[in-house]
Structure formats: C-alpha cells, structure tokens
C-alpha cells in the first residue's frame, strides 16, 4: 500500500456538545482518489475540513505528510492542498483570473509566471480564455466550477480536496464535468479526497470509497465491495436507495 499523505488518529469532533465525528482512525493514501460518502450529517464534510485545519479535533491528531496539523502548521498544509467547494466558493468581487491568482499574488509570484500558469490551467480545465476577466456571476455554473478547480490547482498542490464539487450543476453539465475531472485527476496523479452523497459519482471517481454513518466508518474499500460485500445492512440500504430511473413499459 502507498504511504498515507493524510493520517487521522483517534480523531473526535463535537459540535455544541453533540458528537459529529469519530473516534476515527483513517489514512488517505498518496496518489489515489478517495471518496467520502454517506447520508447528510454523517460527518464527511467535517472530516474534509479537519484535514487542512479549518476545524480542529477535540481529541486525536490529524497529520499531513508526517506533520501534525495544528494552528501553527495549518497554513503550510493549506499551501500544499487545493480545496474546492460546491459552486466553486468564488469571491464575487474578483474576476475569474483574480480568483485564480489571488494566492500567487499574495506570495509575490512574478507576472510572467502567473500568466503562464493561468494559461496552463485554462487549457487543462478547458476554460475559455475570454471568460477569465469576467466576474463569477457572469459565468455559468460549470464555468464557475472550473475556476474553482483552477484556483485550487494554482500552486500545484500535492493534494486536492473537493466538497460536493458538482452538487449544484444540472445532470448534463455534471456528467461532462465528471468525465473531465476524472481525466484531470488521472493526468495529474495527485492525492484526491472527494466528498459526495451520490453513489454513482463515487463509483465513477473512486479508487477507494469510505462510507460514513453518524461520524464513523461503516465500510472502507473498493466501490465494487459496497455492492458485492456490504459490511452491514445499512450499506445494503444505502446502495439500494440510489436507484436509476425506472422506466414503465410502453403501452401496446
């Protein structure tokens, strides 16, 4: 097995006294796509936030590349990690280019380097060049998501975290973007952690699926194992709940 880039060890998190996650011990292997899946409120988004220190655990430790993630180290971890949320989480006062280059400017990259990197990313994500100088609300949902991805990839991070990245898109755009995203993940070979509640999407992306329920791991393995070797009745119910369209027979 490849070494874990992220490692959670005995992590628990409570919100307003109620347990939200854990105790949880989990490794995220480098260079693979791990999908966190589960019903709403299962703790999958909290887990993602824990990885880059947006949320601090009440007990246990989170480590990135061997370093414990805490207030002192979180910034360094974030610079090596891209983070994409639903609808891109774009800053409405900045153009697409402004969003993508914000951090590079902050770090003092020179103009030529920034320009070259933006062109490279626009090619990779197939984002139209004339859209770069538009504000987010003048872009389509799919374009916003591409900008969010470009922003996350700008510093060429080791890992990419995505929280329901395609949740706000209509089915056709979503299907196209899923294909493109998977191609990008494969081309870049980065460590990817993706959160979704859609089993089809999970199976499409995942090298490995982690199914969560009430803040605990119910099953951790290949997508196929969820169908063929469910760990408990909840997994079976969860798998069966995701149904495809049922087409009634045509009247004669």
């Amino acid at each position: 097995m490849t070494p874990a880039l992220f490692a959670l060890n005995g992590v628990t998190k409570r919100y307003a006294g109620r347990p939200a996650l854990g105790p949880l011990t989990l490794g995220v292997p480098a260079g693979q796509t791990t999908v966190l899946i589960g019903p709403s409120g299962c703790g999958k988004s909290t887990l993602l936030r824990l990885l880059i220190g947006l949320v601090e655990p009440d007990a246990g430790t989170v480590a990135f590349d061997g370093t414990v993630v805490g207030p002192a180290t979180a910034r360094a971890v974030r610079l090596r990690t891209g983070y994409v949320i639903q609808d891109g989480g774009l800053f409405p006062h900045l153009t697409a280019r402004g969003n993508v280059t914000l951090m590079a400017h902050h770090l003092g990259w020179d103009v030529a380097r920034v320009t070259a990197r933006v062109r490279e990313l626009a090619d990779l994500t197939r984002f139209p060049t004339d859209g770069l100088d538009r504000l987010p609300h003048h872009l389509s949902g799919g374009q916003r998501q591409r900008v969010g991805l470009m922003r996350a990839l700008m510093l060429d991070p080791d890992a990419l975290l995505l929280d329901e990245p395609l949740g706000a898109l209509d089915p056709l755009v979503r299907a196209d973007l899923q294909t493109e995203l998977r191609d990008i993940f494969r081309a870049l070979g980065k460590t990817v952690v993706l959160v979704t509640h859609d089993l089809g999407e999970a199976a499409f992306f995942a090298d490995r699926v982690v199914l969560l329920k009430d803040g605990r791991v119910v099953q951790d393995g290949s997508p196929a194992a969820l169908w063929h070797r469910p760990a408990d009745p909840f997994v079976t119910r969860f798998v069966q709940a995701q149904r495809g369209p049922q087409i009634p027979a045509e009247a004669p």
Partner: protein
Amino acid sequence: MTRPAIVAVVVASLAGCSPERPVAVGAKKFTESVILAELGARLAAGPGVTARRDDLGGTPALWLALTQGDIDAYPEYTGTITRQILQADPPDLAAALAAHGVRISKPLGFRNNYALGMRKDTAAAKGVRAISDLRRHPDLKLGFIHEFLDRPDGWPGVKRHYALPHANVQGMNHTLAYRSLVEGAIDVTEVYTTDGEIAQYDLLVLADDLDFFPAYEAVWLYRADLETRHPEVVARLRRLEGKISEEAMQTMNAEVQAKKADEGRVAGEFLFRELGVETAPAGPGLAARVLETTVEHLLLVVPSLAVAILVGVPLGVLAARRPRLGRVVLATTGVIQTIPSLALLLFMIPVMMWLVGQGTGAPPAVAALFLYSLLPIVRNTHTGLTGIAGSLRESAEALGLPGWAVLWRVELPLAAPTILAGVRTAAVINVGAATLGGFIGAGGYGEPILRGLDKFDIPLMLEGAIPAAVMALAAESVFGLTGRGFARRG
C-alpha cells in the same frame, strides 16, 4: 487625500494655531455685543497685528474664553460683572478683576440696562406702568431669554425683589421673544434699553420703581497680558472710551437688527464718523463669505470624518471578530449617537480644553463631529463583515491566506459597499451637525445661520442653510457613486 495630508489637516485643526495668533475679540450672541466686538476687531487690527471677531454665546462662555486665553478681549457690562461674574460688589472693581488676570477699560459711554418691556396697548389695558404693577396681574404670560432666566440679576432676582407671583414663564431666543411680544403670544419680556426694537415696535419700558436693576455700563474686558503682548492694541481699543452715546448705539442696533445691515459696515461707518479711523470698507461680498464659510465648514467635516473612518473601520472589524466586545463597542457608539448634538458639542469644550488647551473654535467641534460620525461607520463595518457567507471566508482560509490577508483581500472588499454606505450616512450627519459649530466660534455654515436667527434675517440664514444642504447632497452623491461602483464590481 493622502494619509499624511489627512494627518496634517487633523493635527493643524486640533492645534488650531498659526505662528502669529490674531487678536481675538469675543462677542455674545446678540446684535449689540456683535457690533461692539466688530468695532473692537476693526480697531485692534493694525500694522503687524491681525484681529478677528469670535461669536461665542453667553456670559459664562465669554468669561471662560477670556480667562483661558481663547480670546483677548470682549465687551461687557458693569452690572453683569458684579452680579453674574464676580457675584459680589467690590469697592475696587479693577482690583477684583486683576485677580483673574483681567483688565477693565473706562466706560464706553452708553448704558444698556436690563428692563422689562410690554406692548403699550396691553400695558394701558391692564394699567401697568412700573414693574411693581405686575404683582396685580399674575395671569400675564412672561417670556425671557434663557440666560435672563438663570442670572441672579435676571428673572430670579426681579421675582424676589418685587415679590412677583407669575408662574407662566417661558425661555426663548431674544429675537423670538420680541416677535412673540408683538404678536401677543407673551405679554412681558426683558429688553436691553439700547435695543433697536423698543423704538421699532413702540414698546413701553416698565419703570424699575423699586431700583432692582444695577447700571449696565459698557466696558472692555481684556487680558492683562494683552498689555505686554500688544500695548498698541489696548490703546486702540480704549479710544472708544466715552465715545459711544446711547443714541449712537441704539441707531447702530436698529441698522443691523431692523434694516439687516451688515454689522461690519455699520461698525466701519461709526469708526470713520466718530474717530476718523478708516478700516476695511464693508465685509467681504456674498461669494467671498460663502467661500470662507465653506472652507471653514470643510475644515470641520473633513478631518472629523477622516478620523472617524480611520477609527471606526478598525472598531467595526474588532466588533465583528469579538462578538462580546463587539456588543460593548456598538452599544457605546449607539449611546453617543443619542446625546443631543449640541450637548455633545458643549461637553467637548472642557474635554478639548484639557486635551489640547483650546476650548473654543474648531477643536471641540471636530471632536464632537468625530464621535457623532462613528456609529454609522462602526455599525456598517460590523454588518458588512458579519454578512459575508461563511463559505467565502472558509475558501479564503483554505487557500492559505493568513488572517490579516483574508480581511484585507477578501472580507473588506466584500464589505466595502456596506461600509461606504455607512460613511455616506456619517458624512451627511456630519455636514448637518457641523452647523452647530457656530455656537462655539468654530465658523462654518452655522455662523450665518445663527447670526441670521439672531437678527431674524432670513437671507443671512439661507446663506448658511443652502450651502449646507448642497454640501450634504454632494457628500451623498460622491459616496453614492463610489458605492455603486463597488456594487457593480461585486
């Protein structure tokens, strides 16, 4: 404006001093005092000496300003000195004043005694000729200026001395009291015996049959150190001793009060006629006056607003970051806003006296306006920051931006339209409230408004009111346009 420039303006306006300070002649807020101060300021100016008139309010404010050195001289009345200022009748008035570092000139010539006045027809109908006759008519309505209501040589003294029974007594502005008397809204008011209105409205001055009112001879009070700093100014002021007759004063009062003549022109003509002294012709023309008050007004508004932004935005950020502290900050600025603006202005006089050693003029006005402008800026900064979606702040943090950069690059730009709306509100409040600076000699549009109220001179009031409204609208649209620019981008 660049930041150093703003700081320079603030420091200059707070310090309020130039290398060679002009000689300041104070005036109380009524026509005769203004004319006398104008005479004084015109006489005081000479080679190497500039002089100006400061309209400051009532006797306590003038006395304080004189003893603290904000003004160098002002016209006063002997009766006021003994009854109100010293509250004693010392055998040697000059020695008693010298103990306060103040000198007194010889009488200027006329007396301006307090007296009570009525319409002749009302007085005839009631059979009133002297103050003691009022005792038989407890139903008469009395109206006095606030100062007269408080002074021991005013209404409280008269009431006790004559055992007057009247309970229906209102406080009002001097000019308003005359108009109320003429229109029959009140029956008795206090008059100064040199008032132009006595002749203008043909009023009856009630005889002081039990000899309550002392003599009020006009004199100069000036600082003892003026004699060492500018002996020639003292000599020039004292040229008026014995030169102003009662009729001359009444005529000048009537010219300004009834005919709305400019007090500077009236004073200049008198000096030429009586002393052969030629001073600057009339005052400056309308355009020059408006320009001058506009500059003065801007010197109140711009520094106070600039400091309010520099302090208010960080306070708003603090309030948004620390909710518990934020409640205290918002409540405090809210309480300041509920203080009546005039009260806040007067409260700033001792505070600024203590802080920068100048209790009149621009510093207390700028300080009060600064406090008054805080709330909209603090509240809108707080609202703008707390209204930002949590996902955006999280996205900024997830990028790896440090806390201050999240604030500077993401949160403040997102909150900018709301903050600007707060600044706009503050600017409009500020421009309006700055007119109250006229009460404490801070200049600006309040000056003509208050002089106009005193003289009941509507064009003069509008000379301050219209530019003030224009400036408020200008501030509104400048910040409105900037705000819309932000909104379009965001």
